[in-house]
């Protein structure tokens, strides 16, 4: 077991890693909470015309007609992407003034009838600010990576917390709260209880958080290596022809991977795609596989050639990759911590930490450490009976 000296060291690691990351964790928790209910909030606040209720197997409308209709509405703008609504049979067509433009807006179409439904307001609402704060603190990639570092500190703080939990709890029953002791000792007990009980949850939040912050560089890497190779191997006789049918591309992708469904299509020219291909993101149909994304390239100038490349990645990892591509288009960021399961229970635990560590008083944990050292020294020097007769 740990010597008193090591416990002291780990205690210090625990204190400082927690102190540094706690403010950012608090921010992440507070922004994460509304993001959990993002869909519900946007349903409440956004004007929304529902798609017609038809049986699941009803034939789907032609995507080319939707694209044409969007072009007609915005003749001077570019089509960026198509995305399928998860909850309703709706297809969103994303339109922007230019491929490199930072603002895009979307038109909603009925997936079955092909009817234009409505145009949700441009994405500059409250929830977008919350998302930006949560993901990158308005600082782009550096902000994202910084938050990743904070999540790393959080993991270290959790690990060191588990290490020092042992010696502190050695003589106490699990979950002891000494209510009649000093207020700070009571807090200390509560801190230990909340911390250890929510541990695995917090570890999951921290690690998935780190993975998400790496999604953008990983996606860039994938694009510059794998995607570039894929394109290079099919470059012969390529000429951009944007008029090719997206419907044909989607049909070919579906026949190439019949057990999958379409998630979204990035149009040629989109900065997340290539200049000559439809980048079609597909996903499975079962609960597990629906989080595994497979990109399919559909070449525009030659609709017979489709390259299928399965992204052999595990769930949350590939989800990150895919969502990095779609983040601008679909406000998806909230789903990133383990898909449907999004949480922020560690808030309470870290706040105990903060209040304990910032106190000028001699902390109960400090007293406990002193006592431990004493016990250790006694044990080393004295007869065993003397050390344990307490």
């Amino acid at each position, binding site marked *: *077991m740990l010597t008193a000296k090591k416990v002291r060291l780990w205690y210090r690691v625990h204190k400082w890693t927690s102190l540094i990351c706690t403010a950012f964790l608090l921010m992440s928790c507070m922004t994460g909470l509304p993001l959990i209910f993002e869909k519900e909030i946007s349903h409440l606040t956004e004007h929304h015309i529902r798609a017609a209720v038809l049986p699941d197997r009803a034939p789907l409308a032609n995507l080319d007609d939707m694209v044409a209709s969007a072009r007609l509405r915005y003749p001077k703008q570019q089509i960026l992407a198509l995305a399928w609504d998860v909850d309703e049979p709706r297809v969103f067509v994303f339109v922007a003034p230019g491929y490199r433009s930072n603002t895009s807006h979307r038109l909603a179409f009925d997936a079955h009838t092909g009817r234009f439904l409505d145009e949700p307001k441009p994405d500059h609402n409250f929830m977008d600010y919350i998302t930006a704060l949560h993901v990158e603190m308005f600082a782009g990639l550096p902000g994202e990576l910084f938050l990743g570092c904070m999540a790393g500190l959080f993991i270290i703080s959790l690990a060191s917390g588990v290490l020092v*939990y*042992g010696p502190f*709890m*050695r003589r106490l*029953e*699990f*979950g*002891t*709260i*000494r*209510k*009649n*002791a000093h207020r700070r*000792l009571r807090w200390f007990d*509560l801190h230990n*209880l*909340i911390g*250890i*009980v*929510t*541990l*695995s*949850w917090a570890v*999951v939040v921290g690690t998935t958080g780190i993975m998400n912050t790496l999604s953008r560089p990983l996606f860039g890497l994938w694009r510059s290596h794998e995607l570039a190779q894929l394109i290079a191997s099919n470059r012969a006789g390529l000429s951009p022809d944007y008029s090719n049918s997206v419907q044909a591309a989607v049909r070919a992708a579906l026949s190439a991977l019949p057990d999958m469904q379409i998630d979204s299509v990035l149009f040629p020219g989109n900065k997340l795609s290539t200049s000559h291909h439809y980048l079609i993101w597909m996903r499975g149909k079962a*609960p*597990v596989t629906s*989080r595994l994304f497979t990109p399919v390239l559909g070449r525009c100038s030659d609709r017979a050639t489709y390259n299928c490349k399965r992204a052999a990645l595990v*769930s949350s990892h590939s989800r990150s990759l895919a969502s990095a591509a779609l983040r601008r288009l679909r406000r998806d960021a909230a789903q990133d911590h*383990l*898909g*449907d*399961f999004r949480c922020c*229970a560690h808030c309470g635990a870290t706040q105990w930490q903060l209040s304990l560590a910032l106190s000028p008083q001699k902390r*109960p944990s400090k*007293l*406990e450490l002193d*006592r431990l050292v004493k016990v250790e020294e006694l*044990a080393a020097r004295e007869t*065993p009976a003397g*050390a*344990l007769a307490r």
Partner: protein
Amino acid sequence: MRQPFPFRKVYGAASLIAALTLFGLLSALLGDGVWDALSWVTLVIPLAVIVWMYSRAPKASAHRERRL
């Protein structure tokens, strides 16, 4: 000799709760229907334990706690 570290006493309940939480998170992620219900149950457990332990603790000055 000092007593060996009481690993099971200190980390036993905590490991069980950690395992249940992981099970709950995975079942929420990977399953539907019954698995969702299972995840609700298992994920409530940590919160229930906190509330239970806190309310179970004897009220202040109910008995004299030995110092630390």
